[in-house]
């Protein structure tokens, strides 16, 4: 039974027999315990190709298991699948288990080229809360946390006052109220805009009482930290649920350790709430430190005789610094570190090209499979999430998939006349195409869409050209503003959820609250927006998993494309080898080069009796671009005619190759 069906049944029960609303545990979504049970069964049934590694135990004493698929041959590149790390993605765990099952059965061939490491539930403590009663929206682990820093810990959580099995909301008519009902749908609440002359009516709270009598409601609930926000890239300190510092939690530490212990991991795939396959991450984050241009520290600027106030780009600074220090091996990375340039926060533009192509393929795939119906956007990356860490600090291609979001409610779009653009059309256009329409057409379009007068066509063109705006985001903003006007400001998600399932909302019912007095309890059932009925969930998972399977085929793959030997003199040979990457993705990623992971590919030559005259036998290679990126390596060797030399290319996560050549006059 799905959660939404359960909701309906529960509500019916509530009305008819007036006992506490009790939802039965979901059959479609497995509990953390059932997930572990399934993993054990899979490992037991497929002993030759599956193993289960216990990474750690959570504060709630739940095991964190990694299912390792494929022959225990760490020379194969591995795909790491991390599911439900934030504890709020039931579908993700289902998908991970289904993926594991398929790889062990129908898709068994895939294990010949890649290993698969599958963490089916990265945050079992948090996810277990989904099955607890009453159901509350909280995904923290069971580490006690004194959220309000008073004299007690975890003492004031929410309560299910009306006994319907859910922690929903309470509203209280109050002079300090800043919320009103949405005109078209009294189930929804919205915040008023004083600047429009609106007056608030209600205060909103989570359902519950002030258990510790401090005047605050539900400010210190059970637990803990969400380990899915506890990774060291873009980690935020001083929050209530992200942990005191990154890697502070058993779950996140164990996964980090696992990654560093498994340098064969070539790609990560995060199954959760975000979807980087559908929407490529944008380059719009502001770095906390540094930028693209740098000032020299005053002391050095003075010694080098340059203006300490002037900012230089790296391509100017690097040769300047090499010249000044006389240290020819000075790298950009070393200089960036010395200048305290800080961490990268936006995807490298060279990597972004690959991401965009993969995203295009994914969106085409969705279209082919009729999965391209309009749906709400997936949320963006959380601070300290695994998805971003895997790319920015671990250096591998990192993708994420959420399988499903609420469908957008169907509605008629404004269209003034046939010649004008629709928002749908706008969304499908490139920036260049929109700009090419010209000022006049854009102005007509803006007018037709009732855009506020201050948005002129010239402004839009400038925004598009300057990269501050793109057609997609523009369409989204315009839809939102139209919606605000049309529906009395209902939240987009509320609208969509209500259209998808009206039972996801509990109607406001009066309740006599011990400290607030008369209130009403109602509102959205927690997590109902992320848990479709099981048929929908299964369908979405089954239809999208093949793309994941095929994604693995894009990992970088080393090959020795060609070896050429030329006789230079008696017993002296010039050996040239072209080491190429035949995979679609680069090795390493451009960010990987910056963050110094994974280790570079290496070319090696050996042979006996062979003397090396020029070129070191073992040579680390630079970045090998995707789809045939190549680097030439050459050696000058002294060997008798007819000697054999072996060329090897090696890497931790992009495979290896080997070629044996005989040094002969006519060798090509």
């Amino acid at each position, binding site marked *: 039974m799905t959660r939404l069906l359960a909701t309906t049944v529960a509500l019916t029960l509530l009305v008819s027999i007036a006992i506490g609303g009790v939802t039965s545990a979901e059959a479609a979504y497995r509990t953390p315990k059932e997930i572990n049970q399934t993993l054990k069964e899979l490992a037991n049934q497929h002993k030759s190709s599956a193993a289960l590694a216990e990474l750690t135990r959570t504060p709630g004493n739940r095991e964190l298991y990694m299912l390792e698929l494929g022959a225990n041959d760490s020379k194969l590149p591995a795909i790491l699948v991390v599911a439900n790390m934030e504890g709020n993605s039931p579908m993700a765990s289902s998908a991970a288990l289904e993926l594991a099952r398929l790889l062990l059965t129908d898709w068994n061939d895939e294990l010949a080229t890649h290993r698969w490491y599958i963490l089916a539930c990265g945050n079992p403590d948090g996810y277990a809360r989904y099955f607890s009663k009453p159901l509350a929206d909280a995904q923290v682990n069971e580490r006690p946390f*004194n959220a309000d*820093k*008073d*004299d007690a810990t975890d003492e004031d959580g929410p309560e299910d006052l009306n006994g319907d099995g859910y922690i929903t909301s309470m509203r209280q008519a109050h002079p300090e109220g800043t919320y009103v009902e949405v005109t078209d749908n009294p189930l929804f609440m919205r915040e008023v805009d004083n600047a429009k002359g609106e007056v608030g009516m209600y205060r909103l709270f989570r359902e519950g009482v002030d258990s510790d*009598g*401090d*005047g605050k409601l539900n400010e210190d609930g059970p637990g803990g930290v969400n380990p899915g926000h506890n990774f*060291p*890239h873009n*980690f935020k*300190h*001083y929050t209530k649920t992200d942990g*005191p*510092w*990154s*890697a*502070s939690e058993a779950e996140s*530490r164990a996964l*980090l*350790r696992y990654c*560093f212990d498994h340098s064969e991991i070539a790609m990560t795939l995060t199954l959760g709430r975000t979807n980087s396959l559908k929407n490529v991450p944008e380059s719009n984050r502001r770095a*906390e*430190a540094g930028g693209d241009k740098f000032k020299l520290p005053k002391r050095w600027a003075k010694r080098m005789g340059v203006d300490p106030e002037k900012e230089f780009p790296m391509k100017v600074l690097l040769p300047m610094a090499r010249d000044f220090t006389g240290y020819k*091996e000075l790298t950009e*990375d070393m200089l*960036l*570190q010395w200048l*305290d*340039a*800080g*961490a990268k926060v936006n995807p490298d533009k060279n990597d972004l090209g690959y991401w965009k192509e993969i995203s295009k393929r994914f969106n085409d795939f969705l279209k082919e499979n009729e999965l391209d119906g309009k749906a709400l956007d997936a949320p963006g990356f959380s601070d300290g999430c695994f998805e971003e860490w895997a790319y*920015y*600090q671990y250096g591998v291609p990192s993708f994420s998939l959420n399988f499903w979001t609420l469908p957008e409610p169907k509605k008629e779009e404004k269209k003034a006349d046939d010649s004008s653009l629709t928002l749908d059309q706008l969304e499908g256009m490139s920036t260049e195409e929109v700009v090419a329409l010209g000022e006049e057409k854009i102005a007509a379009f803006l007018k037709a869409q009732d855009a506020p007068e201050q948005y002129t066509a010239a402004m839009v063109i400038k925004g598009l050209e300057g990269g501050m705006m793109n057609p997609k985001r523009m369409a989204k903003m315009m839809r939102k503003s139209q919606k605000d006007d049309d529906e009395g400001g209902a939240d987009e998600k509320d609208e969509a959820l209500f259209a998808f399932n009206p039972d996801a909302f509990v109607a406001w019912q009066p309740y006599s609250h011990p400290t607030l007095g008369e209130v009403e309890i109602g509102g959205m059932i927690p997590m109902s927006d992320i848990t479709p009925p099981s048929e929908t969930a299964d369908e979405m998972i089954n239809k999208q998993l093949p793309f994941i399977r095929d994604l693995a085929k894009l990992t970088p793959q080393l090959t020795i494309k060609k070896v050429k030997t030329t006789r230079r003199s008696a017993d002296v040979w010039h050996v040239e080898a072209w080491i190429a990457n035949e995979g679609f993705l680069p090795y390493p990623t451009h960010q990987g080069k*910056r*963050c*110094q992971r994974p*280790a*570079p*590919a*290496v070319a090696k030559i050996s042979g006996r009796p062979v003397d090396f005259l020029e070129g*070191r*036998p*073992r040579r*680390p290679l630079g970045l090998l671009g995707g789809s045939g990126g190549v680097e030439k390596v050459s050696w000058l060797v002294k060997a008798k005619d007819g000697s054999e030399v072996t060329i090897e290319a*090696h890497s*931790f996560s992009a495979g290896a190759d080997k070629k044996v050549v005989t040094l002969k006059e006519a060798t090509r």
Partner: protein
Amino acid sequence: MIAFRIFLTLALLVASTASATKAGKLTLSFDHYFDGPEMTRSLEQLNAAYPNLTELRIIGTSEEGRDIHLLTINNNKTGKDTEKPGVYVDGTIHGNEVQAAEVCLYLAWYLLESYDSNESIKELVDSRAFYIIPVVNVDQRWRFFTDAGHYNKGRTAMVPYDDDRDGLADEDSSEDLDGDGEILRMRVADPFGGYKTHPDDPRVMVRVEPGEIGQWRRLGSEGIDNDGDGRLNEDGPGYLDMNRNYGFKWQPPYVQSGAGDFPMSSKPTKATSDFIITKPNICFNFAFHNSGGMWVRGPGSKLAGFYPPSDVKVYDFLGKEGEKITPGYDYIIGGQDMYTTHGDFDEWMFSNNGIFGFVGELFMSEQERYRKQEPKKSEDEDDSQYYGGTPAEERQLFSDNLTQGEMYTPWKKFDHPQFGEVEIGGWRTFTTRMPPPFLMLEMVHRNASMVIFTARHAPVVSLELLDVTDLGGGLKRVRVRASNRNAIPTLSSTAVRHKIYRKDILRIDGVEVVSGGIIEDRFLNRVSSLEHRPHMIFTSVPSFGRRDVQWIVRGKGKAKVTFEAIKARNKSLTIDL
């Protein structure tokens, strides 16, 4: 090295317990460096000699399996350690910064040995808890005494790392080629090498002037190019700098070299941080390093933000006293006056845990002057931390005439397997970053005194009744003051601002409480009253200051006022209404 050992043995034989105290229970002589076994043994001896005042615990093990010792000094008769303000002291997080451990050991020994004879020490030990971890980097400090060494070698944790990005970890370390127990420097004859022999001292090299022909090229550390990549000793053991491996605004290795894979990824950093969070009573910490002569505070980087002015005042007070307790030291801000560091221990302590602290950079090369005492230190010649202080040729004379040449190995020819004839020589392992043993006692004593001075300034709160006023109709106004005459507040402003701890609680029990709150101005009668739970006021007591509170109560007889703090002793007061 052998000569050095003989020197140490001789020194040991004639050593007396150098201290102001009377003969105590245990003689420890601070005229030599304590190697791994002796350091552990000394801690065990201290623990055995003072079982009622000490506890010796192993808080974890290192990458190579060595124990990390914690000595707690606390008088259980006067209360549990966590009931008292705690002072945390550690040393040698960088394994080559050895003398930090001696400072920690001396501090412990001095506190314990003086307990019976010095009233002020007794009072301090009875009212504070000291947590002392003399050696954090147990692996490398141990190796500093047993392996062929160099004063700059051994900073890292023993975690393999591919420093030169060639896919191999730790494959090209330095070597003691001539087998003298030291990793020294190598030079090779080269007219374009940029260096020539100093005209006055053949042991010293100086840069050539433009137009001059040189004599030498510096090759770097003694060793060979093990991996044949054309670079010498570029990938030795590690590198994971534990003092970049802590959790506040930790940055990955591509931003902060030596950061490790993730926060607290090394065993000693995990062990120390796990221990520290079990002791929220810690109000101050010292982390001893070498060298340069500095009391360093954060912020260590721009990312760490700023420290609230009220916290800076606390630092300034203690730092400026420190400059007098240890003459020659400068009180500085790490990230501004030195260089940027991310993920260092002190930043984690202060910004993540709200605990004040200093890094103590032990020893100044200025102590190795060989010249007539000057009236005043001149300002212009001290722009770097070490070896900058005293010119090399002057240090040679210091070594010649004050250590009988113990500090330096003169250049000697050596047939290098890769470079042919080279010369090997240089400053020996136990030099440059640390004083010769005869200067040790003053160093350990002065630096331990700074810890003791600071420990005196741990928060001690007194609770007093200001007045009880009858408001008529059975109502009374009770005004109470909690004051702290010491420099360290019960909670740093950083801790309050970021809600790191439960605040202190001032509460009244035994009467009906009508209202209550903090008195903002006693004379103008401005009070911030609480709307809820007025009997319980959450607050903190500032540096050299007080917190006045008032309650309006109804009732007769006795009421009890209590003060509960995490970083200060609890107090209570009975009021007769």
